[in-house]
């Protein structure tokens, strides 16, 4: 497609728990501004791959690069901690279960990391929180506690919290899977807005129609390997692999009766 050096570069990623190999020689190159969806049945390794990118689940083999920096480089423990803490500031992550900090108000959820890690003053951090919360449509809830929000609202705050660190890439780990169906759309809209702003995103999802409408590329994973990948219209309309066909048939049967 392009000769550009990849922005996120996963080379020969391998991960095993004892004898169980959950990722088998995965390669994935994502260009700057690209949006990649990873789909597949549960247990296929898609979340593990995503969580390997910011080293929440470290790989047992292979390399992951963000621009010209290797994320999982071999370093003595202390140096590695320093290195990974800096790398993680550049990678935003959104979880299935939001993981907002329940003891902090929405405002402090967003300002905590920028204040601690980027040395922002109270006033600067507040301004930043207002900008980010405005973007996800949650400004009017800035002084609420997470427990006072709906699931969709929590997830939008979680996105604002990640964006406040001004990340280079955003990872979404089934961001809408835990939501009631009527709350999915508000989160999808925020993600679409990010896509329009050319945020680089890697999205693990079960929402096929969302993946089709937003993503530049789709990976279908099963049993720890990338079975098929390509542009969404090919993967969803005209898949080559039988396992992809089977997965989509089952999945879409539920979605479009």
């Amino acid at each position, binding site marked *: 497609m392009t000769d550009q050096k990849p922005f996120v570069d996963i080379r020969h990623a391998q991960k095993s728990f004892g004898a169980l190999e959950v990722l088998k020689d995965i390669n994935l190159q994502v260009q700057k501004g690209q949006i990649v969806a990873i789909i597949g049945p549960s247990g296929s390794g898609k979340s593990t791959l995503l969580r390997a990118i910011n080293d929440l689940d470290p790989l047992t083999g292979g390399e992951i690069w963000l621009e010209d920096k290797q994320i999982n480089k071999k370093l003595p423990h202390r140096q590695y901690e320093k290195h990974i803490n800096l790398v993680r500031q550049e990678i935003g992550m959104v*979880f299935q279960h939001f*993981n907002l*900090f*329940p*003891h902090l108000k929405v405002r402090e959820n967003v300002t905590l990391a920028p204040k*601690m890690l980027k040395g922002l003053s109270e006033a600067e951090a507040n301004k930043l929180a207002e900008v980010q919360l405005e973007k996800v449509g949650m400004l009017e809830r800035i002084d609420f506690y997470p*427990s006072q929000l709906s699931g969709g609202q929590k997830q939008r705050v979680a996105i604002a919290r990640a964006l406040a660190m001004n990340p280079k890439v955003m990872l979404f780990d089934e961001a809408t899977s835990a939501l009631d169906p009527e709350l999915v759309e508000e989160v999808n809209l925020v993600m679409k807005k990010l896509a329009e702003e050319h945020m680089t995103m890697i999205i693990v999802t079960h929402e096929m129609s969302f993946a089709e409408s937003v993503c530049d590329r789709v990976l279908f994973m099963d049993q720890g390997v990338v079975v098929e990948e390509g542009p969404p219209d090919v993967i969803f309309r005209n898949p080559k692999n039988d396992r992809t066909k089977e997965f989509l048939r089952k999945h879409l049967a539920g979605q479009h009766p």
Partner: protein
Amino acid sequence: MGLDFSVIPDYLDIVLWGALWTVAITVGAAIVSFFGGIVFAVIALYAHLIVRLPFRAFAFLFMGTPLLLQLFLIYFGLVQIGIDVPAFMAGVIGLGLHFAVYNSELLQTSILAVDKGQVEAARTLGLSRMQSLRKVVIPQAIRDVIPPIGNNMIALLKDSALVSVIGVSELTLSAQRAIGSSYRPFEFYVLVAVIYYIINIFMEAAQRRVERRIQASK
């Protein structure tokens, strides 16, 4: 000989001073036990084995021996090896460390009960292990143990009477002194019991206020 509460006003200043010392010891020891409890919990859960093992022995000393003995050891024992601790300080440190060990046990359990996703979210933002612990995990863990820690603090208030044996003129020892010259044990013990009870009521009220504030963020 009947009861005669009319002697109380003559000795009221002694008893009230005693009450003041009891409050001072309790507040001092409560602060030591709270922050000590946090530090101990973090050591017990996360410190290197070289730190953790001696700490276990220390925790066992405080949980497995009488508080009275610990006070004797700090006040009368340490002076022999050149550490002269004033009685009031010995009381605050002894009571404080004793209850710090109990608070630490509570906190360890609640730290482990904080959802793993909380640390993941904090680490993902770039916070270090220590930063995540300090800003995300420990505040939530403390929130969950405020009621049992409050109970410990009330036990601490009652156990502060033990500090009388190392000569701190707190409430119980003041009562003894008043009784020594008035020969009215029943009257003064009742008075002192009432004063302990009143301090207790204030502590419970404080605890309820803290709990109410926390409730909002649950």
